[in-house]
């Protein structure tokens, strides 16, 4: 159950090389939204658009493929996509909303749909929720420290950042790569991530991440009826290249392993929080 319930797991990448060029991994998120937009499955999607500082994303409501393309690539810092979920249905006039988010953001979305106290007219307008795997996130200043101090790269000259194979890597315009071991980054993690019990966006319609599949490819879980429908249509239309997940290395075993690690580590944190002080604990949101 650490991978959530899903109908299928696939190794995939976008068929459009233009999308792949600047995507983080297999361009799944951007390709799927582009397809959904063209097909009228969504009217637009809340994605992490460019912000006013380098690698500091701002949630935007993208209603064109061009805007989706602008938002490609992972920014390892907080992008409060849920903050736009209502506005998308208001002054943007969307009836069918797509949203991409980390597991916690997708949890927030599902809670907003089931307990929509302050979310009038939002629940039934969610047409496609794409989740991205996430081990942890970093506050902007933490990311800045990792990139500028530990990796010696000016934020402005970074073109891509990536986490994988135990390392945090920063790629620059001039083609250089700067890497630090992941253990150096832990201290900069956002505290709220340490109680998170979801690695692979269990509650998304479709979730995706890099882990488990070769570079340039993505691991995809198709989870819900909505996800199944959209994914099936996109495959049918030739929008994705796929491989059997059983045939690729390292495969789902690694995803499961990492998910287990995250969940057990954070379960432990929750336990420690319960006895954090002297006869006093910290709050547990899951009780």
């Amino acid at each position, binding site marked *: 159950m650490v991978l959530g*319930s899903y109908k299928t797991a696939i190794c995939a990448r976008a068929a459009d090389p233009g999308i792949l060029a600047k995507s983080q991994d297999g361009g799944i998120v951007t390709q799927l939204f582009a397809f959904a937009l063209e097909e009228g499955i969504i009217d637009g999607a809340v994605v992490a658009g460019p912000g006013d500082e380098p690698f500091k994303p701002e*949630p935007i409501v993208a209603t064109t493929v061009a805007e989706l393309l602008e938002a490609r690539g992972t920014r390892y*810092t*907080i*992008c*409060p*996509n*849920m*903050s*736009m*979920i*209502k*506005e998308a249905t208001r002054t943007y006039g969307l009836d069918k909303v797509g949203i991409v*988010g980390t597991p*916690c*953001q997708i*949890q*927030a979305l*599902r*809670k*907003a*749909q*089931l*307990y*929509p*106290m*302050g*979310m*009038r*007219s*939002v*629940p*039934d307008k969610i047409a496609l929720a794409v989740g991205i795997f996430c081990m942890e*996130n970093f*506050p*902007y*200043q933490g990311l800045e420290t990792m990139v500028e101090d530990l990796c010696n790269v000016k934020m402005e000259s970074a073109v891509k950042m990536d986490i994988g194979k135990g390392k945090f890597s920063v790629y620059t315009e001039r083609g250089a790569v700067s890497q630090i071991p992941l253990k150096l980054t832990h201290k900069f993690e*956002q*505290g*709220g*991530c*340490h*109680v*998170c*019990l979801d690695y692979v966006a*269990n*509650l998304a319609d479709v979730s995706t991440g890099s882990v488990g599949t070769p570079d340039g490819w993505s691991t995809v879980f198709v989870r*819900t*009826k909505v996800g199944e429908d959209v994914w099936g249509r996109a495959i049918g239309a030739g929008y994705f290249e796929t491989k059997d997940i059983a045939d690729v290395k390292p495969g789902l075993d690694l995803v499961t392993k990492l998910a287990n690690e995250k969940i057990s580590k954070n379960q432990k944190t929750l336990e420690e*929080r319960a006895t954090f002080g002297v006869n006093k604990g*910290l*709050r547990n*949101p*899951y009780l």
Partner: protein
Amino acid sequence: MGLLSYLKEIFTGKQDAPEAPVAPAAPAAPTKVEVPQPAEAKPAQTPADVKVEQKPEETKMEELPVADKITIGHVHMSGCTGCLVSLADNYEGLFALLDNYADLVYCLTLADVRDIPKMDVALVEGSVCINDHHSVEDIKKARENATIVVALGACAAYGNVTRFARGGQWNQPQHESYLPIGDLIDVDLYLPACPPSKESIRNVAVMAYLLLKGTDEQKELAAAYLKPLMDLAARGVEACGCDLMVDVINQGLCMGCGTCVAACPVRAIDMVYGKPNIDREMCIKCGVCYAQCPRSFFNFDVINQFEAIGEAIDAAMGKGGE
């Protein structure tokens, strides 16, 4: 030409756009729904396709047994009727609710019953002016007469804008003290927000129905669904945007999703470097930012079943295919 067709012509115009009445899940029972009268439980036919899934993996749906409707009342204290309008904003769903699940036995704004009758669920809107003895009597009577008392909306739950009240206004300058209903009576459920969305009121109504009239499994699901709202009621009568600081950020739980921003009805919250900043001069103390935050409560047992529960509620309201 018969009266019926004459009337139909008046309101459907010529030939086109005849408003096919949106059929509830099953044809409505031919029972006549009167302007609700107290203590007049009417057997209602229940849609055959209300289904609830217990486990996400299972695709088997439970059949809802034919059962009586529950009785619901709307008790108006010092609120603005916005919460009631929100209930009415279920549009045709309001009729689906009233046809199949609930008799509205008391609601001064919509029906003629003048005294608070016995009822299964009292939706209380507004806080209580303790300087007005009528209000105090009414809230006590609501508690006495209802099995489940719901604080419908921010004023009832937390005081909301009436927290700022301090009297001094003619013609009743002594009306200066307003209390959330939980300060005077035991409250079973909170449904915070100003106003609570139409969908959230609908969900609570359907769940209350399942809780009181459903099968054992449905009761279990409904109880699980309602539990966090009971916990909110137990948590206390004070709410503020400050709760995000005190009970989420300070507790090391905020992860910057931005849900609180979208939920705030007065746009008092914006995100500053990934964490909410609350404009405390805008905040009206409605409590929805905290309630909506995924780190206030997050009940996996229910939310993991979001797909099935969503479908069940849609089916209950006569929406959706299948």
